[in-house]
């Protein structure tokens, strides 16, 4: 112990000198920072684009509200003629799209660090009482090639590149001393091999991990204003902790491989194989296993069911559908009278059909959500086979762009969609005209953040998994170091 405290700083300082002298540290740090900067730039611009879209939609929504109320007022004052399919007095028009109301999921302060599923799943839906399949699948426009490649964001740099740089700097810390003949001279002094190795790795870990963990935080604070809030602090701490734990795992692995006492070339080969297996192959295999164990229900079946229910609806409401629009012969039917409005039978039929479709396919739609949730549960349970998965899931979770938060958003959409329909149903079926005060009462989507407890227990679990793996490797390294033959 005494040797550890006395010698660790000495080794640390010496290693710094060496790393600075042969420029390898600068090179590695340079690469890390450059790629990280590019990743952060991508993350921040992508997140800002999303936010801009949301702001634009909010403006559109507000504009539409003003326009609708204004037009309604003028219709009441007889200053304007209502249009048949864009009549602000007609709840069927308003509820099926004229209100132009959006439900949005806001970006979290750490969103630029991991874009996650944000290019894949919508962060806003235009809500109407039309059936869910009509709006649930309108994703953002992205070149599918880019979706396939994935984004170069900060989490990518941390998950893939950081371990490689760790490997490049530490694959031969002990072997090179043995191969070049310094080791005997070093160890003729009262220092243990584990202290030596710890000092060497610490000297590399400090700049590398500090850079990987802190540069993104600094960049966020400087260039991403939403990150400058007190609430973001614990999330930033979470990011730092995850990056450190993930880095620690790779350093522990490097320590273990160095303790095996093989040649430098062999060490490099071993560590790179580990990297290929853990970050490239394992996630792909786990993904395959998860989707094979819990395959998505058939979308074809969903399409078929939707069609069958629609046909049933067409037959059921045939009577209503066959009724002609009255406004073409009597314009007055477009105007509200004593709070009542003549809702065309066809529009009522469409309302009922959409309602029926939702009712009939809701269990099928639920199965998709359940399936994604159970896939996610499998990933959570077996992700530990690859620390890359654990760290990725953890960081994406913190960034608010993980599958789970999108799932959480969709659940809220379900409820909100119900409320929306509940609000319009009596009006559409009862032929009540929209009034100005009704507009103020139209359900408004209020985003409910995921439970904080869930988020923090997730984080704690993942940190624990990473640290446990690192600890196991460190213990193994110490065991092998005990048996390490200097000569």
């Amino acid at each position, binding site marked *: 112990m005494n040797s550890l405290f006395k010698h660790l700083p000495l080794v640390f300082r010496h290693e710094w000198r060496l790393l600075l002298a042969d420029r390898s540290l600068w090179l590695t740090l340079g690469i890390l920072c450059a790629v990280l900067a590019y990743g952060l730039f991508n993350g921040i611009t992508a997140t800002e684009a999303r936010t801009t879209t949301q702001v634009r939609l909010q403006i559109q929504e507000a504009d539409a509200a003003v326009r609708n109320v204004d037009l309604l007022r003028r219709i009441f004052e007889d200053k304007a003629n209502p249009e048949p399919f864009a009549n602000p007095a007609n709840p069927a028009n308003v509820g099926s799209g004229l209100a132009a109301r959006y439900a949005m999921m806001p970006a979290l302060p750490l969103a630029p660090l991991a874009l996650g599923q944000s290019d894949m799943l919508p962060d806003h839906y235009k809500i109407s009482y039309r059936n869910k399949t009509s709006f649930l699948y309108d994703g*953002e426009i992205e*070149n599918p090639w880019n979706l396939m490649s994935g984004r170069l964001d900060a989490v990518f740099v941390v998950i893939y590149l950081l371990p490689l740089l760790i490997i490049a700097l530490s694959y031969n810390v002990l072997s090179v001393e043995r191969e070049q003949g310094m080791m005997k001279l070093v160890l003729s002094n009262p220092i243990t091999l584990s202290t030596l190795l710890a000092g060497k790795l610490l000297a590399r870990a400090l700049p590398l991990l500090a850079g990987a963990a802190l540069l993104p935080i600094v960049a966020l604070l400087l260039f991403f204003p939403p990150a400058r809030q007190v609430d973001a602090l614990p999330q930033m701490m979470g990011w730092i902790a995850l990056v450190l734990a993930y880095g620690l795992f790779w350093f522990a692995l490097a320590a273990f491989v160095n303790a095996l006492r093989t040649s430098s070339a062999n060490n490099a*080969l071993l560590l790179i194989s580990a990297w290929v297996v853990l970050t490239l192959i394992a996630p792909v295999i786990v993904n395959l296993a998860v989707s094979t164990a819990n395959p998505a229900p058939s979308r074809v*079946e969903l399409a078929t069911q939707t069609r069958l229910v629609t046909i049933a609806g067409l037959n059921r409401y045939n009577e209503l559908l066959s009724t002609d629009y009255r406004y073409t012969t009597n314009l007055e039917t477009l105007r509200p009278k004593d709070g009542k409005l003549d809702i065309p039978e066809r529009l009522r039929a469409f309302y009922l059909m959409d309602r029926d479709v939702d009712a009939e396919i809701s269990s099928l739609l639920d199965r998709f959500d359940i399936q994604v949730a159970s896939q996610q549960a499998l990933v959570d349970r077996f992700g530990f086979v690859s620390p890359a998965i654990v760290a990725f899931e953890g960081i994406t979770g913190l960034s608010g762009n993980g599958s789970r938060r999108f799932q959480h958003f969709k659940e809220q959409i379900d409820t909100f969609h119900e409320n929306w329909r509940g609000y319009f149903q009596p009006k559409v079926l009862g032929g009540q005209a929209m009034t100005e005060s009704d507009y103020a009462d139209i359900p408004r989507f209020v985003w409910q953040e995921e439970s904080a407890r869930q988020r923090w227990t997730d984080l704690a679990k993942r940190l624990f998994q990473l640290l446990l793996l690192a600890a196991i490797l460190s213990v193994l390294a110490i065991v092998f170091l005990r048996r390490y033959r200097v000569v």
Partner: protein
Amino acid sequence: MIGLIARRELLEFIRDRRLFWAGGIILLLLAIALLVGWQQQRTLNAERAAAQQLDYDDWVSQAERHPHDAAHQGMHVFKPEAPLAVVDPGITPYVGSTQWLQAHRQADLKFVPAQDATGLQRFGNLSVAWVLQVLGPLLVIVLGFNAFAAEREQGTLRQLMSIGVTPQRLLLGKALALSVALALLLVPAAVVIAFVSLSGLEAGLQYDTLMRLLVLFAGYAIYLSIFIFLTLAVSGRTSTSRIALMALMAVWITGVILAPRAISDLADRWYPTPSRVEFNNSMDQELSKTYADAWQASFGVSTRWGADLPLNRWGEALQVDDQAGYLVADRHFAELWGAFDKQRQLQEWSGLVFPVLALRSFSMGIAGSDFSAHRDFSLAAEQQRRLMQDLISHDLIHHADVLDHQHFTYKADSTLWKQIPPFDYRLPTMEAVLPANIRSLGILSLALLVSFVLALASVPRRA
């Protein structure tokens, strides 16, 4: 002489078991990828074909109803997966597979498989193409990183040079050894892949698929050859095998892991695509103007579907509306897809430096799982929708209501439904897709030439 060098080298691969382990893992992954891909595709295509048939049966046998409401029921079309999507699924997981052909508006295909998956999907999709594109070069590197460096370290290089082996022959010998080693692994794999992907196909498709496979294999052969020469070049220039390995790893990671993402982001910035809101807004704006003009021109009225136009002219109105809209939608989609195509071109040209990008484009293109294939299907689906719309409008005009206010009481029957043919989508043939993929093949060949020259220039001339 070249054969002798190659034989000695091969013996080494086999003796030190590198070929066995590295190759074994690759073969195992290939086998899993192929098996899973094949199994999934078989069920998927069977399901889609059955659903497609069922859909049409339901269409034809639907009750008598107003044609516009029939269009409400619409038809579903399901995208069949190209046979070679088993080998390279390409963008398949990231595009929709189903389109509901309904009245009024062109839409994107729905149901993107990746939306039904967890975030892990983004690490990559295990497929034959993924294994060959990402891990193939790594296999080459593991086999060849010490080709020259080790000989230099052991001093055998000096010996070889002293007995008069020319550097060119040495290079070719080593390249041959690497190629044979890869061939030993991959040719049997290719045979299995061919056998699996051809099985169960109808005869016409079988020939086309076989041709595609041969071209595809040629592309991968070029790709791996690029890495053979690149590996030999680096090995020839570095003093120790340790440095050779590190340098090659850097090349591999940059070229195969980093570049695809970096270039994607770059392409997206260079040829930006609109957001969904922008796209919809701009199309909506143009559509409403176009519609208004068309209505004005055809009927002399300013509001669509207003009271000024009697119901008995709604069939006509539908036709005018649709025809005006088609052009606008076509232009907007062509612009968007044009941007995608420009991005693809940028990716392909980047293939000169990062061959994987050119290969990706080529492989998807030939396998029929690229965006052109998706676009081809989307267009065919939209064509079918327009056919349905046009026939319905035509029928409405023909049966225009004489009473002037009984538009929706009209009911068409199965004679109309039958006029709309079943959606019969044929995958484009090899001849049709080949021209679009010549560029990426050319770029790959160019990259091969460059790497060969690099290797020649890097062969050690002195020990």
